């Protein structure tokens, strides 16, 4: 068992969440609650699993991944953009996908319990009703209308459990013309205006490749969930939260929206976005500069350097051993530097080009100048002394993988610490606990459900 469902400590110990989330943005929200000790029951459909489980076996486990054959499993086809590394196996000329402890699933679901459940069967839906009665919150990120198609309306949920907090994450919300529209992080980033705010002038939008709204969208969903639980604790009443990721993104773009309203200045304008330069306030230097070396896939290494004060610029001139720059009228003030930033960027770029990125960062920082290496995941996990000091990658035992590092949690609380409670669950790992202990079923009843494909 992954730590045991009943051994959790933390502020949210005793809070139970029924988690129908899948993909990325949905699972993040309840995962954040696991750090505080909530018991999150992740429901995977017995007829088709979360596609993040499909990635092939990690090299550290086996080089020979085998497809898993589960009765009733539905063949699905997944955009390769998300099926990140594994190659599918061809069996009888058809692709087979591999069900294993895949990296991103493990990250998004660590600390959760997992059950399987066939929501297409009336008996399965009865189990959902029973579970709602045992939970404080229900989370899902299906497209609008899916839960209602199961007969699970908010009115019905409220009737079963008046204290229930129901948090739904969708691309566009449950009302309005676009309520049936589908969205993934990049869809919402595009529609909201975020994608257009990232890129070099005159080039296509660069977007947010991490992908921002799959991550931040989940964090906001997690916020809504803890807010709902706080409100339920204070008032004794549940809540329905209709969280549209696109509206969440627009609520981080207020400055641009208001600038348009007040000054008539659109974000769709020549020169915007300005790459890594700064507009409000305009500052120079404020850019990325190419360094010596490149990463494992041939992308150059870069360092970001910025000066927000005159003292920082003068210090940078010293670091570059070019004190005369500070005396050049082209660069004497921030205003002058902004006017001549192409020339200035060229000078700084020539200085950084033959140098190592961390050496540049250290020299600049020692002189009080803003400088940061553009760090990859490898850089952060392996070499970043700050993240190591803050213990951001705790190691957890996994039955299939052995001891593997996990992403930690960035909130350090003095009295009620948050931490990584456990690894991610394997498929259906907690059926016995949930159906047996929580719902009080006998082994025979559970066996029968399994035989009939309900779980």
């Amino acid at each position, binding site marked *: 068992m992954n730590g045991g469902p009943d051994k959790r400590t933390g502020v949210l110990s005793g809070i139970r969440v029924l988690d129908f989330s899948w993909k990325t943005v949905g699972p993040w929200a309840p995962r954040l609650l696991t750090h*505080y000790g909530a018991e999150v029951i992740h429901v995977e459909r017995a007829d088709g699993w979360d596609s993040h489980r499909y990635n092939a076996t*990690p090299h550290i486990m086996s080089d020979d991944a085998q497809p898993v054959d589960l009765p009733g499993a539905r063949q699905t086809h997944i*955009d*390769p*953009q998300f099926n990140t590394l594994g190659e599918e196996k061809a069996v009888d000329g058809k692709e087979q996908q591999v069900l294993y402890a895949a*990296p*991103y699933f493990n*990250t998004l679901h660590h600390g959760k319990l997992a059950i399987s459940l066939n929501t297409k069967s009336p008996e399965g839906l009865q189990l959902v009703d029973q579970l709602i009665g045992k939970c404080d919150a229900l989370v899902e990120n299906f497209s609008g209308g899916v839960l209602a198609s199961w007969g699970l309306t908010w009115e019905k949920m409220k009737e079963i459990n008046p204290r229930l907090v129901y948090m739904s994450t969708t691309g566009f919300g449950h009302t309005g013309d676009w309520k049936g*529209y589908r969205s*993934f992080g*990049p*869809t919402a980033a*595009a529609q909201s*205006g*975020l*994608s*257009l*705010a990232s890129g070099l002038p005159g*080039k296509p939008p*660069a*977007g947010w*490749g*991490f992908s*921002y709204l799959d991550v931040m969208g989940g*964090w906001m969903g997690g916020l*809504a969930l803890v*807010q709902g639980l706080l*409100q339920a*604790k204070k008032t004794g009443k549940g809540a*329905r*939260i*209709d969280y549209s990721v696109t*509206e969440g993104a*627009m*609520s981080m*773009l207020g400055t*641009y*929206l208001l*600038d348009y309203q007040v000054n008539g*200045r659109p974000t769709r304008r020549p020169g915007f976005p300005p790459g*890594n330069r700064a507009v409000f306030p305009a500052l120079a230097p404020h850019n990325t500069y190419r360094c010596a070396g490149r990463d494992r896939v041939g992308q150059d290494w*870069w360092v970001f350097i910025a000066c927000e004060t005159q003292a920082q610029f003068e210090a940078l001139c010293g670091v570059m051993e070019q004190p005369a720059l500070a005396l050049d009228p082209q660069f004497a003030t921030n205003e002058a530097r902004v006017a001549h930033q192409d020339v200035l960027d060229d000078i700084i770029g020539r200085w950084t080009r033959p140098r190592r990125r961390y050496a540049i960062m250290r020299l600049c*920082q020692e002189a009080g100048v*803003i400088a*940061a*290496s553009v*760090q*990859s*995941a490898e850089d952060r*996990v392996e070499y970043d002394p700050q993240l190591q000091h*803050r213990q*951001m990658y705790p190691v957890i035992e996994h039955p299939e993988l052995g001891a*593997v590092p996990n*992403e930690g949690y*960035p*909130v*350090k*609380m003095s*009295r*009620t610490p948050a931490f990584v409670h456990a690894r991610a669950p394997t498929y259906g790992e907690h059926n016995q606990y949930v159906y047996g202990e929580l719902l009080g079923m006998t082994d025979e009843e559970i066996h029968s459900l399994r035989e009939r494909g309900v779980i």
Partner: protein
Amino acid sequence: MAGVYDGLTVVELADRRNQWAGKMLSDGGARVIQIEPVAGSPGRWCGPFVDDEPDPDRCIDYWWYNTGKESLAIDISRPVSGPLIRDLLSQADVFLDSALPGTLTEFGLDYPSLKSNKALIHVSLTDFGQDGPWRDYAMNDHAHLALGGQMSSSGYSDPKETPIGGQGRHAWHMGCAFVLHGITVALFDRESSGAGQYVDVSIHDACALGTEAAVPQWMYYGSTMYRHTGMHANPKRLPPLQLPTADGKYIIAVMQNFGTRVWNYLLAWMDEKGVSGELHDPIFQDEAYRMSEYRTGSVIRDAVARLIAASDGEECFHRAQENGISWGLVHAAEENYDVAHYQQRDYWREIEHPEIGRAIPYPRGPFDCDALGIEPRGRAPQLGENTDSILTQDLGLSAESISALRDSGAVR
């Protein structure tokens, strides 16, 4: 309107990093008192300004991030100020600061000095947290996007092109998201324990957590992500998904599936535009083949690109979405004002601005939920707008004392 943070008093030490968290608390019903330097928060001086004329009361960025707050303009470095601020904090529920680590001690505003208010939740949002070898490094939002990994995954497919950090202070937003988590969870605990606590949030830690699959890909496979123009970073080189439309916009053709319904619709649409090419070959009737060809070949991809190039952006978005295809159109933020969908969802809130003599429509906020009640409660304060009322009503100072403080330059 009832709000999730009703009844709380928050004291926020003005800083550009933490102000979105303070705004969300204010939008959720808390009384948020922002303590500003007498020259104004740095957030008042960054622009954009009304008519591009610098004025601390007419900074649009400040307006957005400080809705509904009160402004107490006081110089915290003056010995006379310390007891006043500590008095205010003795009555507060939450203290939100972004001061450089260690620097609040000299003003008696560090957590140990404030602990007599046992219910106080003190949250510090700083660049690197309160400890660690990089604790005192100088940073800004873009520097965090570099160091935290966001830039490494964003930019262009050309390996020679610079990584890009998007505009709009999103490293700070990410830090604030966790500030809000910490505060809300601490409030949840305080409901039963009655006790507050100290919460230390690092923007770098938050950003480092926010790169989606990049970290697990490295940990499990040793993969390095390629940047891809307008789309997810990935350990494989992938063909473009951000595709130009006939009217000069871009569609992000994400998460393509080719089930029967979708395929038949796409094919009919391609026929209409005369771009279906060889897709009527019977071999494409097999979904598994379609998916396989899409993964490894270029026939379907090229046809999709031709279809998008032959259609306008809005046409692409709506026709795709109405048929179960999750494409998105790259909109400009301001273009959302004209979208009926958001109006139908009651997304805009008119906030009066006497500074310009009219109201402006603000975004409601991320959640449609009456029980949480999170939306702007009013405009941002003018510099020192509430100084007198706070000193009088909260701290019991006489008019003479306030006048003396103002004459000495300690308050504005």
